[in-house]
């Protein structure tokens, strides 16, 4: 297939890029202001939406926060790099990771109905251990900041690839757009804008991918034949090198990314209790088509024999490059930009909302319990801005996208099994919990650095889990999870 079909579109000017970013931000701001007026009166509403998020908003918003720039762009990139095996290993654990939340969400929502954060659960689970609580709080903050900056980086990759805007300027404009609207309504804003973003991700993605294939002479059949002719393994999902190269590492990392992420735990305690289980079921199942759809752009890259040098050297840019250079109309290219901006914005505002809950419950109320409601409300809102500013400064320092993602996942993996066991296994104790995480980082991370991602990840998981099991078997005391029902609401709504 002749790749001379790819050519830059002169109509994709920087002005259009700014208009797309700011336009989506202004739309979200208008919705956010309405949400603030109608549904947010205090800190309780801001960080937990009065625990009244219904089934529809639950499903839409969980899909939105899980649809990172990762899911949108890496699905194309992994398919481009590994063929359908890349898509398989990227997609299958992704939806599973969301559904894996179901048992943990049900247990904690049932036994600790007034909770806010996973760090708060750890506080009561381990007898108010400051060390255990601090480790989890710091991990959650670290994870949230990385979530924001990874998606900011995603925005800048797309906008710079498609519109030729300087990526640093795109980063700053992007974060301003999100923070301005996130500041107003907290979790309710995140839930509603996120749900609308799910619409803006799915329908445009379907139309744009179909349009790309309609633009190619011979359509899907030509791509199918060319991809197979380039390497028969491109059309197989059974490449062992894809599994070893990134698949298994990513699978563990994705599990850690949901179970060890306050963005999801905040939703567990904000969604109506009767809907918690089915929200995560529907969200996981309905998430699958998004990366499957966008992954098909990777096959186009293979079929045309595109080289990374054709689109700036970073394979993450293969999808944006194909869409913006294959000769689609301007409207369709803008729709694709909307897909990625919506994915980035919704994940960032979800992470910002999660950060606000950590700051309110795990920092201010824990260390400064006498803080007044009005002060807490202001501090909580300001934390949204602070998290965005910190993430922006890190992005502007120029870190590598893929390395950043894998490093985040490796760190979160160290907390995965200790957290899971603390929910499921009554014998889990503080020594095992803290020791497991500490040993996984102290021993597992050097293994990760020297022996590679696969052995490193497996080592981290094994070390942390075994430490918890050994300490639990030696310790011998059972924890009564039902006792957590006595935990009172830390940030209850003030009386009218």
């Amino acid at each position, binding site marked *: 297939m002749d790749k001379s079909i790819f050519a830059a579109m002169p109509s994709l000017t920087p002005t259009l890029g700014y208009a797309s970013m700011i336009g989506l931000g202004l739309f979200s701001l208008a919705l956010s202001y309405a949400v603030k007026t109608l549904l947010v009166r205090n800190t309780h509403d801001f960080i937990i939406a009065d625990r009244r998020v219904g089934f529809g908003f639950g*499903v839409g918003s969980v899909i939105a926060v899980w649809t990172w720039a990762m899911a949108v762009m890496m699905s194309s990139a992994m398919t481009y790099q590994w063929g359908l095996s890349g898509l398989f290993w990227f997609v299958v654990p992704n939806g599973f990771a969301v559904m894996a939340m179901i048992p943990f969400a049900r247990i904690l929502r049932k036994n600790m109905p007034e909770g806010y954060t996973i760090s708060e659960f750890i506080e009561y689970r381990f007898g108010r251990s400051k060390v255990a609580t601090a480790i989890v709080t710091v991990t959650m903050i670290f994870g949230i900041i990385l979530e924001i900056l990874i998606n900011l980086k995603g925005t800048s990759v797309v906008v710079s690839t498609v519109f030729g805007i300087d990526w640093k300027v795109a980063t700053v404009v992007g974060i301003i757009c999100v923070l301005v609207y996130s500041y107003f309504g907290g979790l309710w804003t995140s839930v509603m804008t996120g749900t609308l973003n799910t619409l803006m991700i799915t329908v445009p993605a379907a139309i744009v991918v*179909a349009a790309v294939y309609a633009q190619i002479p011979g359509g*899907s059949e030509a791509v199918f034949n060319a991809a197979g002719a380039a390497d028969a393994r491109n059309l197989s*999902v059974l490449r062992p090198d894809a599994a070893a190269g990134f698949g298994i590492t990513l699978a563990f990392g994705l599990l850690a990314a949901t179970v060890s992420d306050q963005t999801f735990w905040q939703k567990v305690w904000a969604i109506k209790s009767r809907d918690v289980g089915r929200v995560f079921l529907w969200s996981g199942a309905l998430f*699958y088509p998004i990366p499957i759809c966008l992954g098909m752009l990777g096959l186009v890259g293979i079929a045309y024999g595109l080289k990374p040098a054709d689109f700036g050297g970073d394979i993450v840019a293969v999808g944006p490059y194909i869409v913006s250079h294959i000769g689609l109309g301007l409207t369709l290219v803008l729709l694709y930009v909307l897909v990625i901006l919506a994915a980035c914005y919704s994940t960032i505002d979800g992470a910002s909302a999660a950060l606000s809950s950590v700051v309110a419950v795990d920092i201010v109320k824990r260390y400064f319990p006498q803080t007044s409601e009005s002060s807490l409300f202001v501090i909580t809102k300001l934390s949204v801005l602070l998290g965005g500013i910190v993430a922006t400064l890190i992005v502007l320092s120029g870190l590598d996208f893929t390395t950043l993602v894998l490093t985040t996942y490796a760190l979160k993996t160290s907390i995965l099994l200790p957290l899971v066991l603390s929910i499921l296994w009554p014998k889990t104790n503080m020594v095992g919990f803290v020791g497991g995480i500490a040993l996984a980082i102290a021993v597992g991370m050097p293994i990760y650095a020297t022996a590679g991602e696969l052995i490193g990840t497996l080592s981290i998981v094994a070390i942390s889990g075994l430490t918890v099991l050994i300490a639990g078997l030696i310790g011998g005391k059972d924890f009564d999870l039902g006792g957590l029902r006595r935990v009172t609401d830390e940030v209850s709504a003030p009386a009218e």
Partner: protein
Amino acid sequence: MYMIITIIGILVTLFFLAGFWRGLQNAIAEYRSAAPEPTDVPDYGYGGLAAASVIASAVIIAGAGFSPSMIYAGPLLALVTAAGCGLAFFAERKSGA
């Protein structure tokens, strides 16, 4: 196929927005009523349905390696995602209902 997906996409968008509007009205009404929200968590595990969706996703991706027409399964299913979100609004019960 492009035209079909575009037309279905428009219809799905309308369905989604109708659901969103219903969900928004429910949320505002519940907030204003301030009725206490039940704290019961149903015992459903959903294990079978979760496993089925994992297997289905794997089969669909593998299918794209056997038939060129399966490449369009991705875009069509993305529309199912939007429709599913819209449906979720109609499947939710109001507090006290």
